[in-house]
C-alpha cells in the first residue's frame, strides 16, 4: 500500500496511538459502553468475507458482492452489545479471557481532520480449561479529531483466517 501523506504532529500522533491502545483495553475489559463512545455516530465497521482465488483467476466476481462477517453501523454494534449484555449469553459466563495486542501502528494525516491508521490486532481468547484460540487481523481505520477527542469513523478489517477457527466471534476487532 502506498504512503498516503504527511505525518501528524507529535502530540496528535501520540494521542491517537494512545487511543488505539486504550480502545483495546476497553474491549478486553468488556467496557462496551465506553468503547462505543470512541466511535463516531456515523461509524462503519466492516469485515468482508474472503475467498482463496488464483491470482490469474478469470471468473467473474459475485454480482452482489462476497458479503461481510461484520458490516455494522453504530446501531448494529449496539445490537451486538445488547446481546452480549443481555444476561442470557451462556457462552460468556463465566467470563472468558480475551487479550488484544495492537501492533504495526502506522499513522498518516488525511483530509478533514482525519487520520488514516493501519494496524495489526492479535486477539488471544482463552476459554474453558485449556481451550485457546488466536485470531489475527489487519485493520485500516479512519479516525477523526473532534471536541471529544479522536473518534473512529471507519474500520476495514482483514481477518487472516480463511476458515474461522472458532465456534463464535463474540469479540470486536
Amino acid at each position, binding site marked *: 500500500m502506498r504512503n498516503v501523506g504527511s505525518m501528524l504532529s507529535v502530540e496528535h500522533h501520540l494521542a491517537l496511538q494512545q487511543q488505539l491502545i486504550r480502545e483495546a483495553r476497553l474491549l478486553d475489559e468488556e467496557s462496551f459502553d465506553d468503547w462505543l463512545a470512541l466511535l463516531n455516530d456515523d461509524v462503519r465497521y466492516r469485515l468482508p468475507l474472503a475467498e482463496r482465488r488464483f491470482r490469474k483467476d478469470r*471468473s467473474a466476481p459475485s454480482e452482489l458482492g462476497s458479503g461481510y462477517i461484520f458490516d455494522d453501523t453504530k446501531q448494529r454494534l449496539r445490537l451486538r452489545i445488547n446481546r452480549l449484555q443481555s444476561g442470557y449469553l451462556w457462552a460468556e459466563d463465566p467470563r472468558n479471557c480475551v487479550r488484544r495486542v495492537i501492533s504495526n501502528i502506522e499513522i498518516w494525516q488525511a483530509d478533514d481532520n482525519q487520520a488514516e491508521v493501519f494496524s495489526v490486532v492479535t486477539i488471544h481468547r482463552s476459554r474453558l480449561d485449556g481451550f485457546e484460540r488466536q485470531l489475527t487481523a489487519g485493520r485500516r481505520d479512519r479516525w477523526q479529531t473532534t471536541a471529544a477527542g479522536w473518534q473512529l469513523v471507519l474500520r476495514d478489517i482483514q481477518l487472516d483466517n480463511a476458515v474461522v477457527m472458532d465456534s463464535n466471534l463474540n469479540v470486536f476487532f
Partner: protein
Amino acid sequence: MTEASTLVNPTAGTQRRKIYADPAVYQAEMARIFARCWLFLAHESQIPTAGDFFRTFMGEDEVLVVRQQDRSIKAFLNTCTHRGNRLVRADRGNGRAFTCNYHGWAFGIDGVLATVPLERDAYFNEIKKECHHLVTVERVESYHGLIFGCFDRDAPTLGDYLGDLRWYLEACLNSLPGGTELIGATQKVEIMANWKLPVENVCGDGYHLGWAHAGAMKAVQTLDLSGFTVGNTTVNLDGGISVAGLNGHSLLASLDGRSGYAFYPDPTLALKYLDDHRAQVVARLGKFRGEQLWGSQLNVTIFPNLQFLPGLNWLRIYHPKGPGKFEQWTWALVEKAMPDALKRQVLDNQLLTFGPAGLFDNDDGDNLAACTEQSRGWRTSQMEIFTHMAIGHSGTRPGLPGDIATGIISEHNQRYFYRRWQEHMAASNWAEVPQYNLNPRGAEHA
C-alpha cells in the same frame, strides 16, 4: 457395523454417547453413510460458465465440481493421479486446465490427463495417459439447482433418494420461475464437535431456540415466531409441524407464511416480496404450500449433512473432520425472482444472524463442542442421552407426506435422523437399507 443396533434406540429416543467420539464409529460412518449417500456438492449458480470449478468435500474426500463445455457437470477427486498431490488449491474459479504443482501433470476440465512434462524424454513415450485420468465421482445429479454427488453405484437415483421430501422441497426451491441461487462467498467455520450434533440441532430441535438463543432473540426479534418466548417459559405448539419418516430427511415448519423473516431488523421489503408473489406461488404449488409453507420459518434437512432454512435464507453443509471436528460451510440462499435490493438484504441479514459472527449462530458452537467433548470420557461414552420428547404424539395429516408431530418443539425429527443413521450403519450395502416415505402422496410428483 454389527453393534449399530445397540448404539441408538430410535423408538425410545436414546443414543449411546460413544457415537460422538469413537474413531471406529466415525470410520464406519465414512464407509456406510458418506460413501453411500447422495452428498451436496454445490449450487448450479456457483458454476455457471464452462470451466468454472468449485472445491468441496464428500466426507473427507476432497472433490472438484466442474462445469463442462456441454453445460453438464462433473465431479473429480481433487487429487493428482501421479503422486497424489492436491490438484487445485483455490476455493473456486475458472480454468482451461488443472495443473498439478508437483510435477506439472495437466488435466482438462473433463478430467482427462492432457499433458505430462518430459513425456518423450523421460517416459520414453511409454506412459499410458488414458490410465491416469482424474478419478470421477460415479454419480452426479441435480435437483432444482442443487448438485449432489454419490460414490455408490448401487444408490437409488437422486429423485428416489429424496423421495417424498420433494413435495416440500418444491416450496423451497421451485416456488417461482428461476428457482434459487446462492450468493456471497462461502462462510467457513471450524467447530470442535461431532458432525451429527449440528444436524440434529437444526433438523428438529426447536426446543433450544428460546433458551440457547435467548440473548439474540431478546435483541433482534421483530415478528412473532410460532409462539416462542425468550427463556422458554411458555410455548404454543399449534403454529407448526415437525415432519419426518422420509428416508431420514425432515422438515420443521411454522405455518404462518411469514415468520421466516422474523429475525430481520426491518422485514418490510421481504414481506412486500411475499405479498407481491403469493398468488403466483399458490397457483404453482397450491394453497397449503403457497400460503403456509412459502415464507414460513422452515428447517429442511437432507440426510446426512445438508440443511437449509428458507426465510432465514441460509444453506449449510457440515464436512466431517474426524469424530470431534467439522467445518460448516454456509451460503445465503435467495430466490432468483427477488429484486437485487432484497437479495442484498438477505445476504446482509443471513450473515448478521447465522454467519461466522452471527447473533444466533454464535450461541450454538460451544454447546455442540461441549456435548462432543463430554462424550469422550470412559464413563460418559457408555452413557445414553435422550431425544424422547413427545414420543407417540405424531401421526398423519391429510395430504401431507411423512409422520408429523404438532409444533416445532418436539424431538420427533431427531429420532428419525438417528433411525436413519442406524439403518445405514447396520446395512452393508444399499439393498439392505430400507426405503420409506410414510403417508406417501403417490405418483403426482414422481
